[in-house]
């Protein structure tokens, strides 16, 4: 059935190209998946590299995982690991550790024709473990020890059991050993494989990369049927468009099909246009205010809680994000299995905030509108990096805290010099607004563990022995039913102690042309099911107006 459709469609494509306008294809109004067409996806940042040893940015990762390569495992919609390149796996105890064996698909080939085998997996693993590679996510494999090839399609890994040990393999596609095998670890980063001629084994193969402009991929006709077969689209183009207004115009005039991460102010225009629709999904990124608890003002958890109560987070969300977000209560994203479903974020309650501040000894005794205690004024510098959303947050927080007698001095600082100040062991700051992107496999130890107090990311200088215990357990145990109560307790403690004032989780909005169908975007990413996307079958892959 599918094959029959290709004929019809390519014919339609041919006619359309010749006459240069849209031809209705018979009277068929029913929409059936058909092959063909180009989809252009645009985002404001470049996908830096298709070399998984190097890249860490979001869309390098997505293009690698969902288009160019196949990962051993992927997530289902509930974030459970499911087979992909590995058709199954098993585990066995070995000494005090674990042997994890992956049984690979035997019909996946690299786009140059070489089969993908267990040797590729071992090669990738060995390079990840080699410190010379400087693999950014090496920490994910810290509890992994070694890999052994059992046969061409079976590979065994030795590791210590820890939470989400399978999840280490999601978003790490094996790299081709026959191409990169002889490259010294330290030279992998600069190898042209990453930017000029990557060879993948996924549903799409590489066509062209013009850095800063676009990546072009085309359907891989040899992608195994057992993994879903050839993608419907002929071509997938990833374009870099830096200016949001330009992206919007390009989406509305049909130059691009998917505009990733629409500005909150552009949402209405996309919803109102009959050619486009908006797809939203929750992300793993949250925005927060970090309090430096080495400062007298922020030392007391009661004060930090009072500050949170005094800040109208709902209004911040409405005004800076047009409501595209969810109020946050901790670092666990709302869609995550570990999320505390019954806990509510602290309310906006300036009266309680005033009472708490007074109870903690912060009183305005000289009548200048600012509270003091023991000669210290409740006045601090709140910083952020240049980013309009965050700059607006500074202003709103300044207004809210002035109401409760706390003075905020906003300061916008260049990103890298701000990073220097906050990661320095002396913690040269009072408070700042920034955002984090969490991993699916949560690990907050570098943010809140006592042992990390001088580490680069323990910005709150927060230390609570119970939190340490919980974080140690939830990262070492692998049974979700055991760790869930611990995760819940953790979120309750963090709510109580407020090392951060958690503001909101981002909801991402992507503008999509109506002609692109079967698009699923969720917390796993914007391109999660890109190989199942197809163009409305009476369309032709030529954008209206014949601009392509």
């Amino acid at each position: 059935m599918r094959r029959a459709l290709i004929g019809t469609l390519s014919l339609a494509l041919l006619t359309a190209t010749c006459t240069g306008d849209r031809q209705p294809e018979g009277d068929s109004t029913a929409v059936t998946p058909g092959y063909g067409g180009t989809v252009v996806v645009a985002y404001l940042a470049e996908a830096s590299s298709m070399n998984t040893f190097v890249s860490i940015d979001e869309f390098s990762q997505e293009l690698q995982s969902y288009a160019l390569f196949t990962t051993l495992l992927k997530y289902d919609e509930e974030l459970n690991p499911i087979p992909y390149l590995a058709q199954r796996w098993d585990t066995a105890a070995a000494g005090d550790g674990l042997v994890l064996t992956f049984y690979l698909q035997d019909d996946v080939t690299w786009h140059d024709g070489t089969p993908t085998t267990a040797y590729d997996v071992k090669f990738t693993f060995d390079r990840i473990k080699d410190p010379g590679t400087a693999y950014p996510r090496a920490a994910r494999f810290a509890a992994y020890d070694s890999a052994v090839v059992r046969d061409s399609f079976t590979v065994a890994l030795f590791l210590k059991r820890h939470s989400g040990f399978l999840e280490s393999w999601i978003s790490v596609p094996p790299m081709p050993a026959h191409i990169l095998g002889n490259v010294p670890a330290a030279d992998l980063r600069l190898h042209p494989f990453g930017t000029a001629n990557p060879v993948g084994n996924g549903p799409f193969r590489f066509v062209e990369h013009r850095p800063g402009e676009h990546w072009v991929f085309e359907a891989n006709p040899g992608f195994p049927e057992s993994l879903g077969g050839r993608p419907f689209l002929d071509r997938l183009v990833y374009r870099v468009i830096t200016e949001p207004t330009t992206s919007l115009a390009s989406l509305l005039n049909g130059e691009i099909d998917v505009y990733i991460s629409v500005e909150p102010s552009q949402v209405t225009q996309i919803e109102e246009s009959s050619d486009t629709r908006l797809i939203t999904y929750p992300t793993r990124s949250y925005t927060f205010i970090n309090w430096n608890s080495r400062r007298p003002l922020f030392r007391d958890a009661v004060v930090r809680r009072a500050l949170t109560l005094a800040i109208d987070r709902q209004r911040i969300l409405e005004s800076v994000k047009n409501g595209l977000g969810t109020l946050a209560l901790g670092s666990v994203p709302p869609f995550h299995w570990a999320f505390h479903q019954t806990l509510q974020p602290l309310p906006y309650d300036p009266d309680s905030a005033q009472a708490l501040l007074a109870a903690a000894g912060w009183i305005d005794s000289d009548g200048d509108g600012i509270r003091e205690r023991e000669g210290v004024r409740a006045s601090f510098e709140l910083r952020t990096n240049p980013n309009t959303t965050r700059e607006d947050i500074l202003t709103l927080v300044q207004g809210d805290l002035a109401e409760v007698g706390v003075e905020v001095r906003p300061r916008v600082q260049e990103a890298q010099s701000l990073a220097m100040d906050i990661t320095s062991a002396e913690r040269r700051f009072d408070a700042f607004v920034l955002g984090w992107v969490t991993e699916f496999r949560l690990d907050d130890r570098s943010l809140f563990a006592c042992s990390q107090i001088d580490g680069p990311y323990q910005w709150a200088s927060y230390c609570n022995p119970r939190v340490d215990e919980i974080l140690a357990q939830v990262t070492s145990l692998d049974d979700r039913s055991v760790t869930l109560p611990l995760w819940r307790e953790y979120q309750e403690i963090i709510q109580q102690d407020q090392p951060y004032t958690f503001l909101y989780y981002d909801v991402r909005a992507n503008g999509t042309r109506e002609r692109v169908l079967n698009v699923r975007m969720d917390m796993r990413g914007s391109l999660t099911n890109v190989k199942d996307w197809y163009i409305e079958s009476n369309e032709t892959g030529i954008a209206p107006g014949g601009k392509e």
Partner: protein
Amino acid sequence: MTSYVARRLLQAVPLLFGVLTLVFIFMHVAPGDPTALYMRPDVDPAVLEQMRRNWGLDQPLYIQYFRWIASFLTGDFGFSLTQNRPVSDILLERVPNTLILSGTSLLLIFAIGIAIGIVQAVRQYSTMDNVLTVGALFIYSMPSFWLGLMLILIFAYKVHQLDWWPEFLKFPASGVTSTNYDLFGAGQKLGDRIRHLVLPSIALGVSSAASVARYMRSSMLEVIRQDYIRTARAKGVPERSVILKHALKNALLPIITLLGLYLPFLFSGAVLVEYVFSWPGMGRTIVDAIYQRDYPTVMATSFIFAALVVVANLIADILYALVDPRIRYE
């Protein structure tokens, strides 16, 4: 003349070295380094240390400096630390894009500016002169990035929704070529490139054209009052020939100096316009590289910019000698 050019080029050498040394110092004094891209809680700080070692950033500053100078003198610009490829590849790709954009704008600036200036001078104080003066001032006051956004809004979006609007006046909003460029024939390719060039070069050039028009008008007015113009008219030379032959050549002299001044101005303007139109040129490259502390890329792009400015000034001086026989370089 040749010795003059040689002397000027020789003089440029210490200048360029000074620029490079200053850029090197400023870049390394600025807080942070290229590993900042990888600063996340799930990235082990030891990995960042390893990256610094792999990139030689753990060496003392003066060693890094001499290493860079040494490899630069052998024509090796090194590797971009954020784009993971040779800097020379980046330059080969981006320099032509910026030159095409600035070159087109420059043509536009002088063609439009000179034409309007002449018309205004010849019809001084007429309604046309006043309208053009106000118009030129209006355009001159528009920032290029804002003008760019307005052009996109109108010519890359609004007119696409009008059925009666001619197809060839609907422009793309961004990029150098269309997505299916590699599938086009030769003629179609050229057309596609030109269509992509129209809006950005207007955005970049039009305000300078307005100022060239102002200069041209006053320069032309000054020349028309000269005795030899009156003589030419008295001899019965047709007005058209008086203006375009006798007056124009002399009125152009001060304009040519502007050429040398406008090129650096265009390069800096290109930074904003390239951003708005997603034009993959040098401007965007250098700004991104500075934010990400991609030292080798910043060094190489600043060198190219500095060299282009030196060359542009030299060209302006040479042109000056060519059009004005009174000026001789020994």
